[in-house]
């Protein structure tokens, strides 16, 4: 017999939050904390991607553009003007939003796969441009960030736990925004656009406007992740900041977890990063191909057998686990 409060979603969210908060206090192994930070960061980027790719089904493969713009904006402000990354992170978000307007205006002319290709091109153009900007953006060599020791005001910390909590805060922010949007008119419009753009237009949804708005939010959040990542690894170059792998990972974690769901990107990231950590401990980090081979096999399997993502599998299990009696669980429609 299950206790009644275990059937309430908020109960599990509180448990999850509590676990997330105490985790770095219990686990002190820096390798493990590093993995947790990666999970939080990529889950956050996945959440940002998911707003656009999942709800509005605008399948971008160029989110590295915003990740890189955020990273470069805060780094240039920090090194050239001595401005704290706390201001830089917001500035980076604003720069990314501004960039999303012309990029969106171009790319939204295309649909489906050609939208994806156009977004790849925009991210690549930005990377190539930053490779050329030797004067103020250090060109291909990149630059290391000045190490200021423990300087919380400059977003630099001695303890990995501080970075962990910062990434956790970003993820919480992303999830809260998604939660709010899901339950607003904007959420319904987005789903309408995602289901059938022409039909949405026909019933009076301004699809261009709604896509532009969600792209602004998605770009802003992705840029925050970019600044955080560079502050965490202390190094920036175009191949890191505009890496195609960032764009791929953002989409991949959402798809594996379940696009257009609140928790999909989180579930997807935990699964993929856990796999990646296991592979590294088995094979060492020398074998470049192993990780992406396994990622792509997971992706193919999910697409062929569970295109709605794995979060559905977990919510099915959750229902079977919490609702007493199998008969009742059969009446509950599966959510997609």
């Amino acid at each position, binding site marked *: 017999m299950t206790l009644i409060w275990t059937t309430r979603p908020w109960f599990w969210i509180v448990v999850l939050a509590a676990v997330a908060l105490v985790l770095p206090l219990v686990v002190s192994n820096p390798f493990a904390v590093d993995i947790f930070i990666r999970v939080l960061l990529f889950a956050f980027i996945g959440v940002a991607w998911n707003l656009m790719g999942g709800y509005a*089904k605008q*399948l971008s*493969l160029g989110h590295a553009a915003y990740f890189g713009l955020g990273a470069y904006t805060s780094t240039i402000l920090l090194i050239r003007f001595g401005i704290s990354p706390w201001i830089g992170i917001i500035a980076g978000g604003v720069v990314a939003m501004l960039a999303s307007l012309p990029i969106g205006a*171009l*790319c939204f*002319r*295309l*649909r*489906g*796969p*050609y939208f*994806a*290709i*156009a977004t*790849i*091109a*925009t991210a*690549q*153009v930005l990377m*190539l*441009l930053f*490779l*050329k900007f030797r004067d103020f953006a250090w060109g291909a060599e990149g630059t290391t960030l000045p190490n200021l020791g423990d300087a919380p005001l400059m977003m630099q910390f001695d303890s990995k736990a501080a970075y962990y909590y910062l990434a956790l805060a970003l993820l919480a922010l992303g999830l809260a925004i998604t939660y709010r949007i899901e339950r607003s008119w904007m959420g319904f419009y987005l789903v309408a656009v995602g289901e059938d753009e022409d039909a949405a237009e026909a019933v009076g949804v301004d699809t261009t406007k709604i896509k532009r708005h969600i792209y602004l939010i998605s770009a802003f959040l992705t840029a925050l992740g970019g600044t955080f990542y560079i502050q965490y690894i202390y190094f920036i170059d175009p191949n890191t900041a505009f890496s195609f792998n960032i764009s*791929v990972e953002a*989409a991949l974690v959402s*798809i594996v977890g379940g*696009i257009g769901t609140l928790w999909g990107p989180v579930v997807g990231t935990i699964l993929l990063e856990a796999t990646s950590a296991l592979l590294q401990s088995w094979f060492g980090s020398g*074998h*470049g*191909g*192993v990780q*992406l*081979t396994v*990622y*792509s*096999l997971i*992706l*193919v399997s999910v*697409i*062929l057998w569970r*295109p709605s993502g794995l979060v559905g599998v977990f919510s099915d299990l959750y229902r079977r686990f919490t609702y007493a009696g199998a008969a009742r669980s059969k009446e509950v429609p599966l959510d997609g």
Partner: protein
Amino acid sequence: MLATLAQAVVNGLLIGGIYALVSIGVTLIFGVVKIVNFAQGEFVMIGMYISFFLASTFGVDPLLSLLISMPSLFAIGVLLQHFLIRRVLALGDMPQIFLTFALSLLLMNIALLLFTANYRTVQTPYSELTFHIGPVYFAVAKLIAFAIAMLLSALLYLFLHGTDLGKAMRAAAQNREVAMLMGINPDRVFCVAVGVALALAGAAGSLLMPFYPAYPLVGQIFVLMAFVAVVLGTLGNITGALIASLMMGVAESLGVQFVGADSGLIVVFVMLLLTLAFRPNGLFGGWAR
């Protein structure tokens, strides 16, 4: 100056012939099956490795290995369509895009595991051979590749217009339902379309081998070019893709010549973005007539 310009145009056209084989494949699959094959570049890579291993183990000339790479890739294409693509045709954009995208990642990384990231080259008697007409030099290997690429494109055109199967393919591209009512078996037509497209990619790989190194990520550059050419040449339009590919080759080569060695790709992407801004439907209309 004029000689430099002419040289850049010739170089661009010659490599544009290879781009054409890749982009014709992409546009053929898009036209008939309505899927964008993100993995098309990886099939070029497979074609290259087939030719490389035939050359290094049995001393087979890369051009002769066309006779093996094309049928092998045709078979892979039929299997790909039958076992993978067919299963996502009824689903939305996401599975359709990410299935071939995942396949691209998979093939690249398997190649990385099997063959390592080393560059592999094949030396043929004509690899270094050149001749010149006036001040303009022609590399023999590239010229042969270009000529065979154009020949294959012409054969495809004849196949699509002169044979029943080719006509069935065009019919299925125009309207799948009506084609089925006319007794065309779409599954079979789709398998042939994907097979032919992959055979062209394999041909591109073999033709590249005498003058281009094979490595696991080599397909990326060709597939990006092909995507731009396919958008520029209007989705699903084979003649459009051919002309656009040649234009792209020239644009890239001019970019390298006059803007800087690393600017070829920038020129190509800027072309794509300008096309999207001003002619989002591409330069040519509709499916090839």
